[in-house]
């Protein structure tokens, strides 16, 4: 059995045609069938979830519709949300997760919060106890609307089947439009059983909701003037470029103006790593040059990013000398953390297309040289030792380097949270957009394994490599079961240092090496993978690394590779928490 033959690859055009024919006409069906039909109307091909009492009627329909809609049984509801996120992040489509009431629903919360802070389009559907039982502390009843409110873009409880089509259409529209985010729809069991006349219309607008603010041409002109007069302009771009499908427009703007451009962690891969204007990552473990020169530039052009504290360090000393231009789709982000001189509201694709003709050609050669000089310092002090170490122990960086070489920078890298994540984001080579899938804002350990499953299913043609630490891996390790059952050929690399490495690094630097609860006594990870019948190997020596990575990449199946890395390596450069970006440390 191989992945290509598995059921979710068999969505054919006939079934899609069949669905289309039913649009606009009415049929008397049950609420639970309506839910499945709504998913089909929205073009959903895969969803992730876990059944249980209050959602069983919907699962019964999923059984009937299994040739059209593939449900992936994860091993925990949190895994379902992260898989849906991975699916959404690599495809740009809405990820869908489903769970039962009570604990099923509450287990979704971490993934929902992650999707909210990282602006990932996701629709979660939860079953709920019958409407007559609401508020009675019934079995597996929980107020999931109340619980999910602060971490959803929108949520809604359905108690009547007739509400289903309109609410579901609205859910998908809200999740995907404007600044994307998670939506939770809670459906009582009686609404699932109730029959009604089904008719589906896609949502085009919601009167109280303006997903994309109108572009103001005066702002575009003001921004262009600042950029054209700048001597030392610098761009910091974020995920807004990727979410806004604005990669080409962005490239055109920076190539015309020659502006050195740095990225936030979620902006990575929007343009290739090797692009000459790409000067690296900003933020706590970002590159030396863009962090230092943030405090030297005269105009800082922020595009689709939100000045997260991990990016800015101490706000009181962040880019104070610079005029700030902020291209942003979400008006609430403007002036939230950093006061802007010119805010350009709108989606990045349109704003950047609008400003392009107003911009002067430039190359900023001298200014680029400042970046180059600082890069050389970082290379000598950090990068060289990370990628081409001469010491005995293996480094995380050299593993990434080997993966880059063997995937030719074509892989999507799904990283978890911690030291390995910073190393992965710093060193992974990206040739394609939507290739850096990681939990940025929430920092959710356990994200990568299930997210890699979703990413590979959404883009089966792509190589998907999960890079995970030994800590985070064990938070969602049960998803190996999902990989085994679905045969999804994800490549899993665990960089094992027997420590919660990032916390240990902080303990070393800021808590006098008091390693409180960070050392891990780990199991035999290879044996665990083999227990799930997943090919597995462990590397402990440098001379074995190349072949092991080659074997993993060559495999047509899921593959687990454990690399024993140096126990107490640190990630540098580093901006200590609360310090200024220009106080970045190289050791």
């Amino acid at each position: 059995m191989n992945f290509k033959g598995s059921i979710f690859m068999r969505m054919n055009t006939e079934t899609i045609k069949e669905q289309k024919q039913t649009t606009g006409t009415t049929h008397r069906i049950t609420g639970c069938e309506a839910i499945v039909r709504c998913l089909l109307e929205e073009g959903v091909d895969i969803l992730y979830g876990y059944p249980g009492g209050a959602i069983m009627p919907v699962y019964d329909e999923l059984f009937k519709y299994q040739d059209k809609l593939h449900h992936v049984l994860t091993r925990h509801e949190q895994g379902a949300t992260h898989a849906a996120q991975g699916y959404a992040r690599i495809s740009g489509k809405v990820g869908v997760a489903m769970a039962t009431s009570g604990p099923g629903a509450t287990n979704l919360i971490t993934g929902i919060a992650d999707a909210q802070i990282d602006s990932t389009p996701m629709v979660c559907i939860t079953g709920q106890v019958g409407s007559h039982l609401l508020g009675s502390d019934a079995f597996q009843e929980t107020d999931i609307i109340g619980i999910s409110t602060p971490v959803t873009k929108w949520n809604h409880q359905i108690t009547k089947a007739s509400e289903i089509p309109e609410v579901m259409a609205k859910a998908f529209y809200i999740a995907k439009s404007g600044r994307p985010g998670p939506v939770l729809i809670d459906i009582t069991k009686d609404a699932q059983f109730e029959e009604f006349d089904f008719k589906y219309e896609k949502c085009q607008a919601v009167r109280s909701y303006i997903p994309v603010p109108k572009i103001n041409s005066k702002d575009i002109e003001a921004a262009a003037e600042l950029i054209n007069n700048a001597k030392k302009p610098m761009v910091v771009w974020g995920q807004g470029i990727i979410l806004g499908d604005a990669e080409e427009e962005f490239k055109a703007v920076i190539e015309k103006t020659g502006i050195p451009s740095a990225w936030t962690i979620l902006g990575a891969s929007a343009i290739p790593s090797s692009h000459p204007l790409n000067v690296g990552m900003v933020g706590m473990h970002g590159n030396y040059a863009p962090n230092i020169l943030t405090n030297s530039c005269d105009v800082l052009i922020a595009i689709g990013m939100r000045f997260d504290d991990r990016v800015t360090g101490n706000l009181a000393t962040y880019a104070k000398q610079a005029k700030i231009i902020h291209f942003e789709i979400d008006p609430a982000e403007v002036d939230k953390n950093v006061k802007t001189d010119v805010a350009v509201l709108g989606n990045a694709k349109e704003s950047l297309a609008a400003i392009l003709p107003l911009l002067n050609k430039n190359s900023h050669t001298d200014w680029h040289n400042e970046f180059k000089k600082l890069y050389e310092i970082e290379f000598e002090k950090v990068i060289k030792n990370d990628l081409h170490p001469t010491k005995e122990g293996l480094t995380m960086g050299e593993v990434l380097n080997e993966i880059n070489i063997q995937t030719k920078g074509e892989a999507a890298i799904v990283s978890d949270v911690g030291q390995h994540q910073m190393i992965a984001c710093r060193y992974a080579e990206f040739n394609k957009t939507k290739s850096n899938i990681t939990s940025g804002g929430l920092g959710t350990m356990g994200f990568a394994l299930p997210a890699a499953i979703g990413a590979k299913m959404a883009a089966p043609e792509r190589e998907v490599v999960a890079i995970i630490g030994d800590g985070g891996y064990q938070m969602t390790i049960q998803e190996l079961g999902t990989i085994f059952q679905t045969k999804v050929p994800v490549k899993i690399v665990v960089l094992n240092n027997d420590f919660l490495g990032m916390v240990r690094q902080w303990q070393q630097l800021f808590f006098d090496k008091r390693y409180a609860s960070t050392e891990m006594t780990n199991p035999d990870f290879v044996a665990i993978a083999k227990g799930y019948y997943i090919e597995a190997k462990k590397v402990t020596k440098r001379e074995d690394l190349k072949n092991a990575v080659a074997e993993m990449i060559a495999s047509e199946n899921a593959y687990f590779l454990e690399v024993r890395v140096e126990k107490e390596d640190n990630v540098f450069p580093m901006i200590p928490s609360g310090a200024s970006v220009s106080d970045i440390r190289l050791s």
Partner: protein
Amino acid sequence: MENNKDMFTVSIYTENNIGLLNRISAIFQRRHINIESLNTSPSEIEGVSRFTILVNIPEVQIKKIVGQIDKQVEVIKAFYHKEEDTIYQESCLFKIKSDLLFEERQIQNIIKDSNANIVTVNKEFFVLEKSGRKNEIDLLYKELSVFGIMQFTRSGRIAVTKDEMKISKMLAAFNH
């Protein structure tokens, strides 16, 4: 000073949906901000609700909070106003022993001078209603508390703005 606190009235026009109060109050709660008063009611537009919330925070913070409120899907539009930009009132009810009306002549004068209204009187108690500014209600409370108040309750602030809030226009634009 940027961080000086001021009293701000927040006006929020919303859809009339279950759970929206929770969503809006969570925005304050998450930032550790105490809500001084909160009132929800229908607005001048059919089917549109209006929240009036009073908070005491710096202006730089209220701007960001109104941005967060405005961004909620079911919020049509949120505004914040300074004290001088609104006409506002609060309302309160006092329940007081009826005997006092006859035993304490002073109470009748207080009622007259404060423009309070007697809502009901029976053998045991009478109910006094007063609408006005916070300080007027505070004063009335102080004066009556000498005699003993059986029950007291007070509404949140309600306010209309001197400037127009163009909600109808926004909604009309949607319908076209």
